[in-house]
C-alpha cells in the first residue's frame, strides 16, 4: 500500500470538502439556521498508527454515527462528536436545552440525522469519484471510545481517512471528526479513481 502523494491528498481533501459543503446546505435547510461546515485537514494513515495516539486520543469517549457500506467497495464512514460538542449541537438544532432524561433519545435521534446528512455528503462525493454504486447498510449510532469504534472493523490493516471538521452554528464552534475507513482493496480502488480523475483534469499524481 502506497502512501498518498500530496497531490492525491489535496484532491481527496477537496472531494471531502465538496461533500461537507453539500451537507452544510442540507443542515441549513433543515435547521433554518446558518451552518458552516469545514473539513480543514485530511489525514490518511493505517489504523494501527491512528491508534498510537499520534493523531487523536484513542481513549476519548465519542458519540458516533456509523454508515457502513459493503460490496465491491467496502468500509465504513463515521462522524464522531465529543459529548460536549454533541450536546451543544443538539441544543442549537432543537432550539432548546434537552433535560437529562430526554438526552439519550434526543441525542440519538438528532445525531443520527446530522451524521446522516454529513456522511451522505462525504460518501456522495466519494461515490461520484468512484463512479460505482455503493451498497449501504442502515445508519447506526454508538456511544463508545474512539478505539473501540476503530477496532470494530475486522481488518486491522485497513486504511483510515481522518478529516477533522468544525461546525459553526449560530457562531458557536462545534467540533467533530469525520472518519472513513476503507478496506485495503477499496483504498486501492480509491487511489485508481483518484489517478483517473487527476489525469482527466491534467494533474500530476505526484505534484
Amino acid at each position, binding site marked *: 500500500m502506497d502512501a498518498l502523494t500530496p497531490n492525491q491528498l489535496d484532491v481527496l481533501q477537496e472531494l471531502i470538502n465538496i461533500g461537507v459543503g453539500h451537507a452544510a446546505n442540507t443542515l441549513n*435547510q*433543515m435547521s433554518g439556521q446558518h451552518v458552516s461546515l469545514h473539513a480543514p485537514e485530511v489525514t490518511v494513515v493505517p489504523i494501527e498508527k491512528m491508534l498510537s495516539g499520534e493523531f487523536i486520543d484513542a481513549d476519548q469517549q465519542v458519540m458516533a454515527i456509523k454508515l457502513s457500506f459493503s460490496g465491491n467497495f467496502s468500509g465504513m464512514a463515521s462522524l464522531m462528536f465529543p459529548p460536549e460538542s454533541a450536546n451543544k449541537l443538539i441544543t442549537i438544532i432543537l432550539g432548546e436545552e434537552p433535560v437529562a432524561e430526554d438526552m439519550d*433519545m434526543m441525542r440519538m*435521534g*438528532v445525531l443520527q440525522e446530522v451524521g*446522516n*446528512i454529513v456522511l*451522505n455528503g462525504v460518501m456522495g462525493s466519494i461515490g461520484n469519484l468512484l463512479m460505482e454504486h455503493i451498497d449501504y447498510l442502515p445508519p447506526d449510532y454508538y456511544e463508545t471510545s474512539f478505539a473501540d469504534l476503530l477496532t470494530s472493523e475486522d481488518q486491522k490493516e485497513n486504511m483510515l481517512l481522518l478529516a477533522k471538521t468544525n461546525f459553526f452554528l449560530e457562531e458557536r464552534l462545534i467540533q467533530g471528526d469525520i472518519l472513513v475507513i476503507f478496506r485495503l482493496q477499496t483504498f486501492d480502488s480509491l487511489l485508481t479513481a483518484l489517478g483517473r480523475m487527476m489525469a482527466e483534469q491534467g494533474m500530476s499524481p505526484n505534484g
Partner: protein
Amino acid sequence: MMSSSVAIPPEIGQFRILEHIPLGVVVLDAGYHVVFWNKCLEYWTGQDAAGITGQDIRKHFPLVAEKRFAARIASVFCGGPPIIFSSHIHKYLIPATLPNGSYRLQHVTVSPMRRLDGSFLAMIMLQDVTEVNTRLTQRKQAEDKLRTVLSQLEATNAQLEQSNARAMRMARKAQEANAAKSIFLANMSHEIRTPMGGILGALDMLASKEQDADKLTLLRMTTDSAKSLLQIINDILDLSKVEAGKMALHPEDISLETIMRRCQDLYSIPARNKNLDLRLEMGPDLPRTLHIDPTRLEQILRNLLDNAIKFTHQGWVRFGVQYARDANLGQALHFAVQDSGIGITASSLDQLFRPFSQADSSYAKQYGGTGLGLALSRRLAELMGGTLAVESTSGLGSTFSLVLPLSPPVSADSDRSPGHLVQPSEPDQSQPEPIKTALPLPSHQPPPILKQRTIRVLVAEDVELNQQYLTFLLERQGYHFDLVSNGLAAVQAFASSTYDIILMDIQMPDMDGLEATERIRALERERNLPRTPIIALTAYAMPEEQANFLARGMDGFLPKPIQGDNLHAEMQRLLTTSHQTVSSAPEITLGNGSKSASGTATGTASESTSESNMKTDPGPSPVFNLRDIQSRFMGNDTLWRRMVARFLQQELPEYRERLNQLIHEADLQETARLAHKIKGALGTLCAEPSHETAAALEITAKNADISATTNGMYTLLAELDRMPSAFAANQADRDEDHERATSE
C-alpha cells in the same frame, strides 16, 4: 388490499413480506408514485393501498414535497446513501392522527432500492415513536412542572426571605418605636413633673409666709388642685406603662401589718374630717412577712381607700386583709375595702374599671377625679397576678376585693418564715409593736436621730425655683448647706470642703449630675475619703434610670416634685447608714453597749428600733452627752442623776402619752407647745439627740408641716424610749467604778 385497475410493478412481490410488519412502509418510484403502501399505513392514515397505489404521493401527502424532505429523498433516487428523518427534528412525514387528535411521531428512514433497470426506488419506513416520545414528553412535562414548582418554591422561598427580612425590619422598627415610647414616657414624665414640682414648691413657700386667711384658703385650694393634677399625670403615666408592658414590679420582703397600718394612718385624718369611722381589720393566720411590691400594693389600697372615703358621707369605712385559699391562685391574700357610701348601680359596675370612666359621669363634677384610679388599680392587680373586683348596692355601699397570690418572703434566713403566723389581736409581746409612721419610708424603722445642725449638705441644682424650694425645705429642717448650680461647681465644692450628704440634680448645664457623681467618687478614692451619700434629684422616674443612677455611684433617689418629708426621710436614711459605716470615733457614751438594764417595756421597744443596726455598728448615737454633763454640772453628776431619775419617773410617762395622743389628733399648736416644753427639759439633762429632735419638731409643728411633724413625733418618742435603759446602764457602770474605787 390492492386495486386490480392499477398496474402492479414487477418488484411488488418482494415487498409483500412488509405488508403486515408494525412499521409504516411506502415505496416510491423516482416520479414519487406509490409502488407499495402497507397495511400499517392503511390503518394509520385511513388511506387504503388501492386508493393511492400508482398515484403521486405528493398529491395525497404534500409534506413529502417539502424541500427539507424532497431534496434529500432525491439523492436516494440517484442511489445515494440511506436517509434518516428524526422525529425530534421533523415529527412526521406521513401525517397520521391518533384517537386523541395528535399526530404519530415518526422516525423515518429512506433507503435506495436498485431496480432491474438500474433506476432506484425509495423505500420509506416509518417507525411510530409516539409512545416513546409521549413518555419522554410526559416526563419532560413532569420535569417542566417540577422545575416550575421548584422555581415557584424558590420564588416562594425568596418571598419568605423577603417577608422575613421585612418582619425583621418591622420588629426592629417596633423595637425602635417601643424604645421611642419609653423615652417619650420618660420625657413626658420629666417635662410635666418638673414644672409641677416648681408649682408645688412655690405654693408651699407662699403658704408658709402667708398670714391672710383668705389667701391661705386660696393657696390651699391651688395646692390641692396641683396635687390632683400631679396625681392624674402619675396615673396616666403608670397606666401607659402597664399597657405598654413597661411597668416592672419590684417585690421585696415586707411586713404586711406595716403597710396596712400606714394606710390606716394616712386616711385617719381625712376619715375623721368627714366623721367617718375608719377601721382596720387584720384577719387571723396572716403571714408576718410577704414578698410583694409594696409601692404597687399600697397604690391600689390607697386608691380604694381614697374612693371609699370620697364616696361615703356618713357611716364607716372598713378595710382589712385575710388569709384565703383561692381556686385559681392557691394561697392568697384577700384585701377588702368596704364602705357604707353611695354605692354603685348595677348598670354602672361594668364601666367601673375602664379608664376615664366613673360610675356616673355626673360624679366627676361632684366628686372630682378622672376615673383612672380604678382602671390602673385593676391593671396593677393583674400585673401582680391577682384580681380586683367589686360588689355594690346602690345607696348601701360598696366592697372592693383585691385578691393577690401569696408569695413567701425570699430571704432564706428570715426568722419570719411564712409558716410563722401572727395573731394581730394578740400581739407577741417579745416583738416590738409595729412602728407607725406617716412617711413612705424605704425602711419601716423610724429614722434614727441625727444632729441636723451639724450636718452639712451640698446641693447641686440649676433651676432657680427649685433652688429656692430646696433652700426652704433644708432651712426648715435646720440643715446647713451650700448651693451650687451645676455639676462642675459641685465637684469643686466637694474638693474644697467637707459634706455629710449631697443632693444632686441629674440634668444640669456644663456637667450633669451623673458625671459629677462619678468625679466625686473618684476624688474620694484618690484622697481615701469615706463615701459621702449622694441623692439623685430628678423627674426621671423610670425604673431603669433609677437603676442607672445607683450604678453610676449614687446612693438614693428622690423623684421630683420633691416632698419635704420624703427628702428629710431619705437624707436621714442615708446619713444613718453613712454614720454607721463611717463613724469611727464615737463620742463619750453613757449607757451604750450595756445589757444590764433592759427590763422595761419601753426599753425593749427602744432597743428593737435599732436592732437592725446592732450587728454592724457600735450602737446608736449616745443618748446623753457626757462632755456636756461634765461642763454643765461641773462634775456634779449626782445632781444630774437625780434630775434624770425624776424626769424619767415623773415627766417622761406623761410626755409619751401626750405625744401618742397628738400623733392621732394632728393638733399642731399643741404639738409645738409640748415639743418646746420637752426640748427645754432634755436640754437641761444633756440628752442631746432627743433635745435636737424636740427642737426640730417644734419648728415643723409651727410651720404646719403635718407629715414632718408626725414623723418628728415618732422620732421623738423613739428617742425618749431610749433614755431609761441608757440611764440605767450608766448607773450600773458608775456603781462598778465606785465599787472598784472603794475596794482600791
